[in-house]
């Protein structure tokens, strides 16, 4: 190293100095770092990735629609980020373990979430639905950055078990400012834990542009912690797949953590409660629309003669069917019984809470059957 270290990287918003395999127009270009990781990806595999992304986008639009119709309390759109989510998640093995954040609809989809798993939490029925051990995916984290430490700890467990699995955390550009994320890099590096950090730089943390968090690319931080890092086009599903395979391979071979910054864009509002017109320009959004992650795979497939109307229609039909299931899961949700709010606080009996349960049960019983439906509302 030189004695004086000067930050030499490009500004955070410089989006062209990134690893890429597909141009926005859908041309397949070579990249010395990435090519070797996607040699096996043939047209069929590309079509699968296309289909995944279309389905995720469809879930997302359904989520927005359900929220608008009052079926959900909130929805955090992931439109624009499908390539990042699908590309990285499809590189995983089923027995890897993922710690996603609230916006990783596509990751959770790829891990095997069922229709209800996308909506019951946003409807306010549950804090989470799926059993993390069934799809090897933790509950989607809301506390910004906290899950990165969980992934590192899980990876330390993998090390102790001597398997070649990996633990992966997903988090945003905003999250990169949190102490937890930096501590996670320290721990991962110190213990050489088999973990991958996937930072989705979608340019915004609610209303704050990424430049509030970082004047230089976020990917540039990891090497300082001793973690190899890659900055990849997050709207290029092939590049995301390749980068993730590189990172996972690094972990499986005992080389410890790796870091991926996927540069993409949040096309929608932060959540359905947000009004992005207050803080960002239409032009910026439009410029990113021209980099659409789905369109570029479609263009490539078309150019290769691997995309026709029948395929498109079949995927659209699958997407609509899935959306219908998601909708049905939301509409058909049945709210739990009042007394169940006291369930699962502890794994073992707890005298204090058990007493509260007895009281609350008696209290609820005190309402005449006719009134039972309005328990908890004004009498």
């Amino acid at each position, binding site marked *: 190293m030189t004695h004086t270290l000067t930050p030499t990287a490009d500004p955070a918003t410089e989006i062209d100095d990134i690893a890429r395999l597909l141009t926005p127009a859908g041309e397949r270009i070579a990249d010395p770092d990435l090519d070797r990781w996607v040699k096996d990806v043939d047209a069929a595999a590309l079509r699968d990735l296309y289909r995944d992304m279309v389905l995720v986008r469809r879930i997302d639009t359904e989520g927005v629609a359900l929220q608008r119709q009052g079926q959900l*309390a*909130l929805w955090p759109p992931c439109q624009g980020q499908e390539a990042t989510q699908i590309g990285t998640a499809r590189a995983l093995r089923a027995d890897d373990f993922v710690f996603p954040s*609230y916006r990783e609809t596509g990751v959770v989809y790829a891990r095997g979430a069922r229709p209800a798993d996308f909506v019951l*939490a*946003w*409807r*306010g*029925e*549950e*804090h989470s639905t799926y059993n993390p051990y069934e799809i090897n995916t933790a509950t989607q984290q*809301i*506390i*910004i950055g906290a899950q990165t430490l969980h992934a590192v700890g899980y990876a330390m467990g993998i090390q102790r078990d001597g398997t070649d699995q990996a633990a992966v955390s997903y988090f945003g550009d*905003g*999250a990169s*400012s*949190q*102490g*937890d994320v930096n501590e996670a890099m320290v721990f991962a590096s110190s213990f050489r834990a088999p973990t991958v950090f996937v930072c989705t730089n979608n340019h915004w*943390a*609610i*209303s*704050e542009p990424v430049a*509030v*968090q970082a004047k230089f690319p976020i990917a540039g931080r990891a090497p300082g912690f001793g973690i190899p890092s890659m900055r990849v086009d997050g709207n290029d599903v092939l590049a995301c797949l390749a980068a993730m395979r590189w990172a996972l391979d690094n972990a499986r071979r005992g080389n410890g953590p790796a870091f991926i910054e996927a540069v993409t864009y949040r096309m929608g509002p932060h959540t359905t*409660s*947000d009004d992005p017109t*207050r*803080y960002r320009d239409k032009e910026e959004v439009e410029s990113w629309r021209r980099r659409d992650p789905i369109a570029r795979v479609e263009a490539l497939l078309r150019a290769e003669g691997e995309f026709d109307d029948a395929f498109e229609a079949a995927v659209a039909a699958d997407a609509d069917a899935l959306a219908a299931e998601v909708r049905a899961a939301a509409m058909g949700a049945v*709210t*739990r019984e*009042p*007394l*169940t*709010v*006291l369930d699962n*606080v502890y794994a073992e009996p707890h005298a*204090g*809470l058990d*007493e*509260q349960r*007895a*009281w*609350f049960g*008696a*209290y609820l019983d*005190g309402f005449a059957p006719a009134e039972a439906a309005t*328990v*908890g*509302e*004004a*009498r």
Partner: protein
Amino acid sequence: MTQLTMAKAINEGLRRAMADDPKVLVMGEDIGKLGGVFRITDGLLDQFGAQRVIDTPLAEAGIVGTAVGLAFRGYRPVVEIQFDGFVYPAFDQIVCQVAKLHYRTRGNVKMPITIRIPWAGGVGAAEHHSESPEAYFVHTSGLRVIAVSNPQDAYVALRQAIASDDPVVYFEPKRLYHTKGEVDLDLQLADAPPMGLARVVREGSDVTLLTYGSQVSIALDAATAAEDEGVSIEVIDLRSLSPVDYRTVTASVRKTGRVVVTHEAAREAGVGAELIASVTERCFHYLEAAPQRVTGHDIPYPPAKLEKHHVPDLDRILDAVDRVMDRPNSLSGLVEA
């Protein structure tokens, strides 16, 4: 007097505090162009510029820690924590630095920091967005803790908090942001009752109902309902949780002899425990029945669809009133442990 929502009253409080004192800054996540996720800082960036309305990186320890440094330098930072559940990453800076620096430095360094926290539930929000962490701060010596229940108090208490040379954790019930009320924006701070005083919001003679924040209006509803049943309830809005205005509280309890406390936060070692312990110590011989607590259960805040079974409502308060009045109630059937 103007009719304002609580959100607007707080916004005006910030605006006027900033206009009056160039050392007042506001800082937090998304408080600039967006005006905060609740629009509480709306318009401040335009009026005061980015040097005084600071969109910070997404890191709460960083926000509070840099506010400490600004206070060292003579500034009076007003920090916005985006939601109640996101204050915990800043807990170390609040407990070990903000609360203790004046003591540590033997009074040489003041920490006039106001930490604004949009607070508590009842708004159908996702996990971590409906927390009631006030007891943590009440238990922390060196802090003052304010919880407001209406636009006028919100305006006055905020201005007092900012003017105070002590750190103040200032809780804003999200559920009331859009509730309107009369606000006297021209009130001179010198003329306002000092920060820390409770207020009797409804007089009564049978039961003293102690509460704060968004539970105040529910308590008032309960008092109205109880009146129909012949029970006269005095409702006290504590307004300050640290210190508590025990002069007002004990005067009421000595009159009524019966106490109910209600808050959303969990019961175990909550603010209600402190109130009952203190009232019992101070008014033991006046008490005619065991003081009762109506609180959230001792559970993590539940999913939104179930929150109405967690947050105390009119029925739960009336049930506790029945308990202190020794009428049939939910405990009647249960053997006491």
